[in-house]
């Protein structure tokens, strides 16, 4: 059994893509909330007050857009672990598990599939943001933002996969996922700048990997950052590699009844 079976990884990825593009209502549903956040929260706060320390020419919507992209990536990545739970529920996981394909390859196929769908949704939000007047600094920035997006998505898909490996029912999965996603989102500098925060809160955001993801996105897209892009990418790459290892480890213990 090859540990990394590229045909199998591609096969599993292909299936995830087919399912994703066929479930358009789910796609629209999953984009509705971030859109509300971006448009109404953005405009609301934009009009109400100005954050200090904001560089000239950057309003709240511009500040918020990378944060919302981070949020979309986070939510959709983690919930992509659902596909494992669905497969288990509908028996398809047995079909996958009985094939002569290593668990590692199956986990990687699922990760790649979840990453791609999350990435597409993140990109859609970016497009919509540009449509309502969000300005990107340049092509190079766009490129590094894609790298950030891939790293964020992959890491959190792996987290979702870990949850799906140890939780068997959908309700439990949803509960655990929302238990994790909201603090990660709120404490990530997606909604507010870090500079003015009380010290204890600042440290909380510093141990949150999404903070570096959003910071990297923000630097790439509007040229404003709390850390340096190098630090952001370094933390993201380490976190991502760690999560891939952890998720394949957990996925190996998955049993099908």
């Amino acid at each position, binding site marked *: 059994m090859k540990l990394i079976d590229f045909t199998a990884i591609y096969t599993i990825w292909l*299936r995830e893509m087919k399912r994703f593009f066929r479930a358009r209502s789910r796609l629209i549903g999953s984009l509705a909330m971030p859109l509300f956040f971006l448009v109404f929260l953005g405009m609301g706060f934009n009009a109400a007050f100005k954050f200090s320390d904001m560089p000239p020419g950057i309003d709240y919507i511009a500040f918020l857009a990378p944060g919302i992209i981070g949020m979309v990536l986070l939510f959709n990545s983690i919930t992509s672990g659902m596909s494992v739970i669905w497969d288990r529920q*509908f*028996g*398809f996981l047995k079909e*996958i598990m*009985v*094939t*002569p394909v290593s668990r590692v390859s199956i986990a990687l196929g699922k990760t790649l599939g979840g990453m791609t769908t999350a990435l597409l949704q993140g990109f859609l939000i970016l497009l919509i943001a540009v449509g309502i007047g969000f300005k990107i600094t340049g092509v190079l920035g766009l490129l590094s933002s894609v790298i950030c997006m891939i790293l964020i998505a992959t890491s959190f898909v792996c987290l979702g996969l870990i949850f799906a490996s140890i939780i068997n029912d959908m309700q439990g999965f949803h509960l655990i996922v929302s238990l994790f996603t909201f603090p990660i989102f709120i404490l990530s500098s997606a909604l507010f700048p870090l500079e003015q925060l009380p010290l204890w809160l600042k440290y909380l955001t510093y141990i949150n990997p999404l903070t570096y993801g959003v910071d990297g996105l923000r630097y790439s897209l509007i040229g404003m950052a709390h850390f340096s892009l190098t630090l952001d990418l370094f933390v993201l790459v380490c976190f991502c590699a760690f999560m891939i290892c952890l998720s394949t480890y957990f996925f190996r213990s998955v049993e*099908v009844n």
Partner: protein
Amino acid sequence: MEYAIEIEELSKKFGDFTAVSNINLNIEKGEIFGLLGPNGAGKTTIIKTLATLLQPTSGFAEVWHHNILKEQDAVRRSIGIVFQDPSVDTELTGRENLDFHARMYGLNREERERRINEVFDLVELNDRAKVFVKFYSGGMQRRLEIARGLMHYPKVLFLDEPTLGLDAQTRRRVWAYVKRLNKEEKVTVVLTTHYMEEADYLCDRVAIIDHGKIIALDKPNNLKNAIGEDIISLRVSDGGNFSDMLSKFEFIKEMKLHDDFLFLSVENGEKMIPRIMHLAHEDGVFVHSVSLRKPTLEDVFLHFTGRTIREQEASAKEQNRMKAKASMRMGGKR
């Protein structure tokens, strides 16, 4: 004799519960072999262990000369499996389901195309290939799963309760496919069932399983013959006289008279009926009706366990439900 499957002292425990207990069994290449028993007897556990989805607690087995513990990859390549519960992706078309399977087994494009058409032909689903599986009937889904199990040219095909929940007509069709694929694809078939008539009709040999043990193993006919003779029941005009007359004959092993009804235990009942009719005619006895009952596998099960498979099933279902509930509470880990 070349064996497709060799099982030695195989046991599987779930906690304190022994699902399979020290089973020894050899299954020949090319045969249709049946594991017959009530729900909860351990049939599915045996199949899942052979398919490397479960690890045995002790003992070992070889599937197509590959050790199920050490050569999982080779075992998986040699087998196809149709699970008891549905395991197709209903959001994909039938063809896409087969395509997924073929790619996972590393078939190239040309092989995939050819094989998909072949197996669709075999189960007569060609016209449904491009339809989403969610629009398939239960019987069609089953046939699709059988087709999928055959995609990668397995040597051994496991069918776990292949006709569970299907109507009588569809069941007949599935039986026909199983016979056909056994003959045309030369694939060894191992199936589990709790339907007596299914095991009887399909299987070359049957192992009767109860509480994780094999309690009988033979050809269905031998099993039935071993437990007793055929019963001829007659309704006659003068039972008393006729029974006195018949008691002289040796070919009647046992006789019971009940009002007008006479029950005779004989061997080869179908051959004895004309003779008995002739005797009745000579004796001037008028026969109103006659019927022959051959022992079924149900009788075999009753003989070995002291209860019918359906009684057993009712209590096993209850147990299963309790077990399922308990395991869900524990997070489904077993």
